[in-house]
């Protein structure tokens, strides 16, 4: 009894609160699983079956872009034709020039299935596929299967294999015909080769559409009422084995006006929503204007079905709906109302249900349907059934095009309340079970109820973490979206939650003392001490490090682990360091670094004058040193960045250790070392790694300085110097100053004595002087140049961006806090805020993070994901710190709950599970959490490993190898071209003034010139045409390709696309050759 009282005394209200938190969290999570499994299931996804189709790729050695063609001859129009396709990263599917699909998902094998019957015609048809790959280094790969059933019943199966034609560029034949055109001679294209992927198991992405919709042979009849009424209601009933059994229906009507209801729930209304029109109104007499082609796309889509003129019948489309959500066990009624003004109301419907054993039951419109809204009810009319007027394919509608998977909107107040009801009921159940079990266990063991409650609550922790783990695959493109929401998992989790209570039986037998004695026995059996002493002796004598062991090993161990992490981080960053081409940002700094050993500072020459660097001032110096030692190459220029990124791992580890403890520091360093974003920027010579390192040093040193009273002067000085270096690496880090100020407030809350710290003002003055000097330098350097165009240099400092129309308050939330590898860190910070806020280090990190976020969002009138990179480690540190503090809290709860082995194991399982979860979602080693971002699968350039930015090198070397004397070269980014090609370009295209171009008076005829290489600027299509005509041949380097298309005048693009031929294609880069006075044949010829 006395023992019981002691335990009760030890128990705090805080511990009980934590028990409640654990149980409620687990209950809510389980409630969500129940909601998604039974209440509101997510849309089903399907894996496509490609049968005997083979992965193919272009025959060329280097082929990041692939173009595939296949000709198919049809003697009659098809009654059914579907095509399924998979591509590496991206594919565009075109049938006779008509685009059927164009989807992208970086670093995954994206798939799609399409109805193509209306793109086909009698005669030769061309199926064309383009694949544009950004993941490196494999080539563009494609897998395809199609089936065409002709009207007579003849079936053609098309599979991707070596008979397909493939190339790594479009311009392999002379002529102006588009590569997708049937007039291009197929024989001139090389044959595709089989990909090594055929020997592997390729994880394909899942599709939203049940392939059976397109693959099952069409059945059903058009039906109408006996009196051919313009308004008719048709109904039928179908049987289902289970609630929400998978059921699809496809419907079409004679008038286009169709209402569909299933079991009293309207289906069709949900598809209408407000969206702006992309066309202007026109007078009734005017013909519908043809859509304008994309700039440069000379060939328009072929054989579009002509609009029906004068016919009262509208074009009917077979629209598919997934109605599983409204299906209940037993009989289900389907009601379809068709309304028309001028034609009889007719309906065509077919569908299917999928049984639990996978068998398919089909249903379709027929005379078995009923007129009126109530099927199988005694009707008083003359004929309660409709009449059949024909099968699919009958005039005037023909074979119906199929519209796939129209999204159904199930939002509404009722859905909202229903969802919460399910979640809250589950929560209530979990809490009730917890209380009942705790009361029972407390009575049985004769222990305080609070103890039993806490121990039982701890058992919820591993279940909750397990559910979180099982949730992760839903965000991996290799798994379907609803992977974890299956009855097996949901009910299994509930069962585990119930069964785990059996652990209470072992509370007495599994105590810390018993565990310790078991460990001791195991050590004795394994001769632990003997081995330990031997190992120590070996290290002391052979490695000659006896002095090392004068330091207690426990103190040494964290440093050793940190060194191992540093090596791991360095190896990840060093791997393939020089493989990829420089991008334009890197090259800008590399070219400026040349000046360091000439004049002592980085500069470029323009119009015969020195133009010193006005931004990223501190970055070229390490580049210059590396260049001096190792020579100029991708490897040598990226080496400083790689080293600084590796040093940053150490800084993060040590800083976090000082802010929190060693565990947090080491884990944060480990996560940071393996995070793809940080690895990628560590392999890039741009300013980011250096800037981040300096920024982190500033934040760390400042914290060290303000921890003590009075401030530590040396650390303050070091922080000031580090700030200046980070500011000179990128001016945006000026926001560090206000952030530090607020951080000081947070750490020294309510204290004011530090105002008297004179050294603080000295440092502030020093930093202010550097900032002002940099600003002046920038102003002075820009003053003599007359420049026209848009550029980031317009941005001179902070402004009230929050008042500007372009303001995007969620930008850094999407790009940093909720981007794919940061989501769980952000969540853990939010979870940790209430209980970690009192921790000084946590408060410092959060205040800095919040300040940076607010300042960048509201006061920097330029948005880019890289701008938040310098404070990105704070997200990792904050998330890891919150997790470890949560771990400690749960462990403390276990100690308070009787310190039983069961409680401890549960607490450790919860904490370790959370840490593993944090690590797993932070990189691509186990899971590829590409869909976890707030914005979906739309990654920024450096967020995934192994993706190529821009292949300037390949494009430049191709031109260098193929250009003849007298040819004119128009490089996209002249200074990168100069570096790789070893020769200068001739002109620079800037037709929309999208780049800033200064005025160069030194030309014979003064004009605008490119600021890096001094090339004269071509400003419009007339100038371009003149240049091309004079030279005969002009090479246009489209790199980076997307921005070139976006930032060039449509007239220029049209001219280039119509007169040029793509000679080379690579990662986001193309090279086109324009030949002047070229006859423009309409039909392609062999070269």
């Amino acid at each position, binding site marked *: 009894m006395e023992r019981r009282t002691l335990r009760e005394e030890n128990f705090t209200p805080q511990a009980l609160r934590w028990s409640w938190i654990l149980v409620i969290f687990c209950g809510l999570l389980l409630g969500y699983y129940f909601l998604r499994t039974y209440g509101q299931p997510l849309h089903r996804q399907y894996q496509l079956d490609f049968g005997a189709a083979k992965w193919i790729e272009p025959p060329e050695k280097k082929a990041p872009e692939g173009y595939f063609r296949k000709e198919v001859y049809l003697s009659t129009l098809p009654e059914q034709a579907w095509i399924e396709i998979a591509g590496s990263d991206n594919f565009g599917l075109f049938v006779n020039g008509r685009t059927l699909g164009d989807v992208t998902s970086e670093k995954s094998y994206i798939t799609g299935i399409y109805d193509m019957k209306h793109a086909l015609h009698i005669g030769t048809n061309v199926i064309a596929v383009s694949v544009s790959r950004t993941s490196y280094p494999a080539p563009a790969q494609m897998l395809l299967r199609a089936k065409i059933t002709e009207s007579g019943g003849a079936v053609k199966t098309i599979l991707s294999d070596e008979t397909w034609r493939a190339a790594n560029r479009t311009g392999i034949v002379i002529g102006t015909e588009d590569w997708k055109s049937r007039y291009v001679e197929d024989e001139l294209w090389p044959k595709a080769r089989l990909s090594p992927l055929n020997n592997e198991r390729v994880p394909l992405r899942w599709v939203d559409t049940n392939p059976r919709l397109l693959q099952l042979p069409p059945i059903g009849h058009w039906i109408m009422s006996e009196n051919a009424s313009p308004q008719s209601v048709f109904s039928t009933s179908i049987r289902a084995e289970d609630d929400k059994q998978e059921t699809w229906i496809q419907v079409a009507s004679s008038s286009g006006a169709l209402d569909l209801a299933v079991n009293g729930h309207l289906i069709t209304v949900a598809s209408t929503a407000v969206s*702006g029109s992309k066309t202007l109104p026109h007078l009734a007499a005017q013909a519908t204007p043809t859509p304008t082609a994309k700039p440069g796309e000379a060939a328009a889509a072929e054989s579009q079905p002509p609009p029906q003129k004068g016919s009262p019948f509208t074009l009917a489309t077979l629209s598919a709906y997934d109605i599983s959500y409204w299906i209940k066990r037993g009989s289900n009624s389907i009601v379809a109302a068709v309304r028309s003004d001028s034609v009889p109301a007719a309906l065509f419907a077919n569908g299917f249900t999928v049984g639990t054993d996978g068998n398919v039951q089909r249903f379709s419109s027929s005379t078995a349907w009923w007129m009126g809204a109530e099927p199988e009810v005694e009707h008083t009319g003359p004929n309660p059934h409709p009449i059949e007027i024909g099968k699919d394919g009958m005039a005037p509608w023909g074979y119906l095009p199929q519209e796939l998977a129209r999204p159904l909107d199930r939002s509404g107040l009722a859905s909202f309340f229903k969802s919460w009801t399910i979640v809250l009921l589950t929560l209530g159940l979990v809490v009730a079970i917890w209380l009942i079990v705790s009361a029972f266990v407390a009575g049985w063991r004769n222990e305080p109820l609070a103890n039993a409650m806490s121990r039982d609550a701890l058992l919820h922790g591993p279940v909750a973490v397990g559910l979180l783990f099982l949730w992760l695959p839903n965000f991996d493109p290799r798994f379907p979206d609803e992977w974890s929401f299956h009855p097996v998992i949901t009910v299994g989790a509930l069962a585990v939650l119930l069964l785990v209570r059996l652990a209470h039986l072992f509370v007495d037998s599994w105590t810390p003392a018993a565990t310790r004695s078991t460990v001791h026995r195991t050590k004795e059996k394994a001769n632990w001490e003997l081995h330990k002493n031997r190992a120590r002796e070996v290290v002391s004598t052979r490695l000659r490090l006896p002095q090392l062991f004068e330091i207690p090993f426990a103190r040494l161990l964290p440093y050793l682990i940190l060194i191992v992490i540093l090596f791991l981080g360095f190896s990840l960053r060093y791997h393939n360091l020089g493989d990829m081409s420089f991008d334009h940002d890197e090259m800008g700094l590399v070219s400026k670094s040349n000046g360091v050993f000439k004049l002592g500072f980085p500069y470029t020459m323009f119009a015969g004058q020195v133009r010193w660097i006005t931004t990223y001032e501190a970055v070229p110096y390490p580049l210059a040193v590396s260049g001096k030692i190792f020579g100029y190459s991708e490897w040598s220029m990226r080496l400083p960045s790689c080293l600084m990124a590796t040093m940053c791992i150490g800084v993060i580890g040590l800083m976090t250790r000082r802010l929190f403890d060693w565990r947090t520091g080491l884990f944060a360093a480990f996560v940071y070392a393996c995070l793809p974003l940080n690895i990628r920027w560590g392999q890039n010579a741009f300013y980011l790694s250096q800037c981040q390192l300096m920024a982190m040093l500033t934040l760390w040193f400042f914290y060290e300085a303000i921890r003590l009273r009075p401030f530590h002067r040396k650390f303050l000085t070091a922080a000031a110097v580090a700030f200046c270096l980070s500011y000179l690496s990128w001016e945006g880090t000026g926001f560090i100053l206000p952030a530090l100020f607020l951080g000081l407030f947070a750490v020294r809350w309510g204290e004011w004595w530090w105002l008297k710290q004179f050294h603080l003002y000295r440092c502030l003055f020093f930093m202010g002087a550097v900032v002002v000097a940099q600003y002046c330098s920038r102003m002075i350097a820009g003053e003599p140049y007359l420049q026209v165009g848009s550029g980031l240099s317009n941005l001179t400092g902070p402004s009230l961006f929050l008042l500007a129309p372009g303001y995007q308050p969620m930008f850094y939330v999407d790009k940093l806090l909720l981007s794919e590898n940061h989501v769980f860190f952000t969540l853990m910070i939010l979870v940790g805020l209430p209980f970690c806020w009192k921790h000084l280090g946590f408060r410092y990190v959060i205040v800095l993070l919040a300040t940076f976020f607010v300042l960048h969002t509201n006061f920097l009138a330029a948005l880019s994901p890289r701008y938040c990179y310098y404070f990105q480690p704070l997200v990792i540190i904050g998330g890891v710190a919150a997790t470890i503090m949560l771990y400690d809290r749960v462990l403390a709860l276990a100690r308070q709950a009787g310190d039983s082995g069961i409680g401890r194991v549960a607490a450790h399982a919860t904490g370790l599970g959370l840490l593993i979860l944090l690590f797993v979602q932070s990189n691509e080693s186990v899971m590829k959490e590409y869909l976890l971002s707030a914005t979906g699968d739309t990654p920024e350039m450096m967020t995934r490993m192994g993706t190529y930015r821009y292949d300037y090198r390949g494009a430049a070397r191709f031109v260098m190898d193929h250009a003849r004397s007298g040819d004119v070269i128009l490089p996209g980014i002249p200074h990168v071209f100069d570096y790789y090609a070893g020769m200068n370009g001739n002109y620079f295209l800037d037709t929309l003034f999208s780049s800033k171009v200064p005025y160069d008076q030194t030309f014979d005829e003064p004009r605008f010139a490119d600021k890096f290489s001094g090339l004269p600027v071509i400003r419009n299509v007339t100038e371009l045409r003149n240049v091309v005509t004079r030279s005969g041949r002009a090479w246009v380097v489209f790199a980076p390709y997307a921005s070139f298309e976006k930032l060039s005048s449509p007239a220029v693009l049209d001219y280039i696309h119509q007169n040029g031929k793509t000679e080379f294609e690579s990662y986001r880069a193309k090279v086109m050759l324009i030949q002047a006075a070229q006859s423009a044949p309409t039909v392609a010829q062999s070269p």
Partner: protein
Amino acid sequence: MKIPRRLVSWWERLTRWAEWIANFLRNYFLLLVGSILVLGSSVLKWVQFPISHNLSGIKFSLLHDPGIAAHISPFSVGALGVAILAAALIFWRKNYALLALAAAFLLMLWTIVPTQIAFRESSMLRRLSFELQASPEVNVFAKDFLLQNYGTPELVPKRLILYTAWGRLLAAWSFLRLGWYLFGIGAFLVACYCIGKLPSAKLSTAVTLLCLPLGALVILLIPPAIGQHYYSTGLLAKTEGHNQEAITDFRRAMRWDSWHAGDVDLYATIGQLQKQAGIDFNSPERHISRAVEFRDANLFEAAMFEFGRAAEAGGALAETARREATLTRVNYGVALYRAGAVGSAVTNWQQAMAEDPNEIFALTFLVRGYYDIGRYQAGITTANRLIDLTRDHIYTVADVYSMVGDCYAKLGDDGNARKYYNLSLTSDPILNYWALTGLAGK
């Protein structure tokens, strides 16, 4: 070095002030930040309109739709919020329970803003969604008929579900901007401060105070929820072929929710159902139904005539018919412009603006129309009016400035032309090719 005594005394005084400020900040930090947020937010952007100018807190009236030319209103959310907070701080700063009540009022004001837009003043949501629909049309017009400004147009919400009450609430929320969020955060901080200062029963006080905003929300949600129920049952009755029941339910939905009362498609549906049931041969709904059919077939004159017939009925239906007639006239003008009948187009746009000055997107067309027919001065006057109404949208305003520049250039007034091209470039410097070439030549 000897420090002068006066300097020392100043330094000591400064230190005492600093200590006092430190204590003050420590004690009133939450209240201070919350109050600053509430005060500051009232002048910030609360509602973003895609074309017309945005609405700040002090212009967001709770009594009526502020319209395209909103003014500061004493009954606006911002003004009321500031007044409540000021009164609470002056009179109740020692009584934390009353201060907490004031915070609850602020939270209530904050909560009802989306419901105010979605349900109480549905004309505002209608204007928002209409401007959203019209802005791509204006962009297409600019792309087809004007010189190009290749900059990126403003980002506005793209897809709204307006046929459910829940969807409308989400739609209204999607137009809310920084001011509304800051007001809410400020009110929350003030509430936290007050509850933190309460000696006991903090949780129960917090829950009690939370009842005020939640209660207001529930009260405002009940009528549209009932309207939604009738609307859904009406749609189901329509699907099952019960036309009379459907019409009755639709009319009930209109009574409960003003959104439905102004929905031209719902009137057209009723008209179609009446036609199919063979009842109410000359009803205004049947006129609207016919008008919608004509409009969809691009028979604008016939559509306007039918809308005119429907407008004779009076009430909400007439108002809707008149609004739709004006929109049809604007579209008719665009269709005429495309066909080359610029003079007739201008006449129609002028008439549309005379009928309903709220349809300001027609002013963009009108400016261009005046330019095309050589009425440059009229173009400049209209453009200045448009600039005044759309001043928050730099992309639109930049284009209008460029149009004025074109007009002045045609009038031979190079100085003013240069001034307006410069204004255009200042307003939108990113890829503003139109203004750049206006200044530098092609």
